[in-house]
């Protein structure tokens, strides 16, 4: 990390540190690289938003951190440290105990993260007892408290219901309760509001924010919805084709995005109010994993492309409080562009 000021502090404090992570899929026709040499960190109690379009590798990064990469996907390099301890090379059983206890997970579709054959009570109690040694009764009491905390009305009765008896928003509340049941230090939320209606989205986002503040839990919020990020995150990482294009404080990235991709992404979001004009559009589409362009992966779609972009791969550079991977902000690059 080029941010020298933050380095000493972070060395003691970073809750999650990802260094040069690489996720790859070996196939018969060669190895596909879904996440290519990315590094970032999350501080305790911080919400890091990870945005990007489908295929950018954001969910893969999340899955790699909790050790849930689907084979043949595998970590091809780099390290992941949770509170200073390396977790990417742990045996399955040790990782299983960290998952849920120290890292919680919330996925997009609440119906598939809950077992339809078990009552909510059974699922919550099982999770609590797996991670905390509590007797049945105490675990049940804790489960009810959790449901109350996430805002389920008449939790004492609802706890004995099955997932299908809950509405979409309430199911996601139950999933949040499950994720928080062992008081993890980090929650990986992968598109937690994408399957929900806007009015419910607002409820879930404010719930997630409140709980993290109260419990001091850090969150890695993976989403393609810039609006959700702008509202929730402290820092944002913008991903493109398996790389981080830009990372920085939320206002910097959302308001004054530096990378041409961030710029285009923000411009293409329709706004309410003001004159109705054509939306900014980024020509083309995200490249496929088997055809990632050379140099900067964004160069075929970039409006400000110059010769160096197709040859040299840009690394993250520190620019005005944010970090940007773009040759435009490199001295040599600037000259070439001028």
């Amino acid at each position, binding site marked *: 990390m080029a941010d020298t000021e933050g380095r000493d502090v972070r060395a003691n404090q970073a809750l999650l540190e990802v260094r040069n992570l690489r996720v790859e899929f070996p196939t018969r026709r060669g190895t596909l690289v879904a996440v290519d040499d990315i590094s970032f960190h999350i501080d305790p109690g911080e919400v890091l938003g990870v945005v990007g*379009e489908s295929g950018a590798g954001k969910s893969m990064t999340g899955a790699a951190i909790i050790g849930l990469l689907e084979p043949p996907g595998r970590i091809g390099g780099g390290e992941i440290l949770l509170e200073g301890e390396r977790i990417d090379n742990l045996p399955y059983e040790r990782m299983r105990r960290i998952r849920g206890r120290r890292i919680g997970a919330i996925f997009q579709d609440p119906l598939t993260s809950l077992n339809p054959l078990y009552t909510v009570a059974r699922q919550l109690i099982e999770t609590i007892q797996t991670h905390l040694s509590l007797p049945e009764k105490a675990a049940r009491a804790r489960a009810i408290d959790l449901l109350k905390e996430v805002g389920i009305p008449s939790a004492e009765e609802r706890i004995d219901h099955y997932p299908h008896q809950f509405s979409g928003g309430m199911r996601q509340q139950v999933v949040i309760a499950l994720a928080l049941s062992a008081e993890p230090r980090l929650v990986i939320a992968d598109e937690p509001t994408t399957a929900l209606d806007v009015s419910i989205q*607002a409820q879930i986002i404010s719930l997630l924010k409140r709980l993290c503040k109260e419990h001091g839990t850090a969150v890695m919020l993976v989403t393609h919805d810039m609006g959700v990020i702008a509202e929730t995150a402290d820092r944002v990482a913008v991903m493109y084709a398996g790389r981080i294009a830009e990372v920085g404080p939320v206002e910097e990235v959302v*308001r004054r995005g530096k990378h041409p991709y961030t710029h285009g992404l923000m411009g293409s979001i*329709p706004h*309410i109010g003001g004159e109705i004009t054509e939306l900014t559009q980024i020509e083309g*589409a995200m490249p496929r994993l088997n055809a990632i362009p050379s140099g900067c992966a964004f160069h075929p779609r970039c409006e400000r492309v110059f010769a160096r972009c197709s040859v040299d791969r840009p690394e993250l550079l520190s620019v005005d409080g944010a970090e940007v991977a773009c040759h435009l902000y490199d001295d040599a690059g600037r000259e070439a562009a001028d």
Partner: protein
Amino acid sequence: MSETAHIPDVARTPGKATALVEAQGLMRHFDVSPPLLNRVIEGKGRAVVKAVDGIDFAIPRGETFSLVGESGCGKSTVARLIVGLYQPTAGNIRYEGVEIGGRANARNRQRMQPRMQMIFQDPYASLNPRWRVERIVAEPIQARRLLTDRQAVRTRVGELLTQVGLSPADGEKFPHEFSGGQRQRVSIARALAGEPEFLVCDEPTSALDVSVQAQILNLMKTLQRKLGLTYLFISHDLAVVYHVSTMVGVMYLGRLVEWAETKTLFDNPRHPYTRMLLDAIPDLEMSGRQRIPVAGEVPSPINPPPGCPFHPRCPHAQDRCRVEPPKAIAAGGAQVACHAVEEGRI
């Protein structure tokens, strides 16, 4: 004009072209009752989902009318009613003044049908994976016998693909060789192949990424300008709706709660539900505005609340709202179905 007496005012504003498509008291109920034996043994009654429960609107030629609402509010059912995929339970649909709703008007429907087309939400499910794009796009041309000569069909398909931003050579490919945005372009090319004047678009960009969504929305607007198309646009995304439409109707549990011209609706939302939807949009400007999350969710349409369907979630609900369903009234250029607005409480 006596026939169109209860069409919303917005459709009759002077200077506007006459309505191309009108719906009057449009209703569609679905019977979801348990089987007869269960009803007899378990003593259960019939159950009916009132997916669309009496809505009126009119779409002037060359304009875009959007329906917004949360999932389950009946907006897709309206789309399917208009293109004739469902038969209405009651009410009328008129196309250029000709009634096309219901079995009694099947002949009229047949006559008017070629003039409308539909674009679906999921570009992965709506294209036949075993057909080449050329065949997919050529199908409406052949079905309508617009062109018979094979070479002419080929040329026309090439033109259509170019028009939607693909190349004629893409006709050789299969749908799986395209990305989501490109597939939606193929769907649009297929819809245009039948030379329609009216397109029903059911969430055409919901399955796409924002940058691709921008491409498709811009394309749709360009095509509208060039070909003089009229759109019925269905979406749950208010920002998208603001961008594409000239008129907007907000639906809640099968009814239109408010409809007006786009500017009017967004500048001055009147119905508490419209306000709630607008408040719930995440704030990209980061002005520090606190979103007000609304309690509760959309109730089941099988057993909707009596009176105004929105009253259990409404901050302005009073006794009257719990009993009497509100009727639409004109308020400041908009049509609003709300007792509180009628009584001047909000």
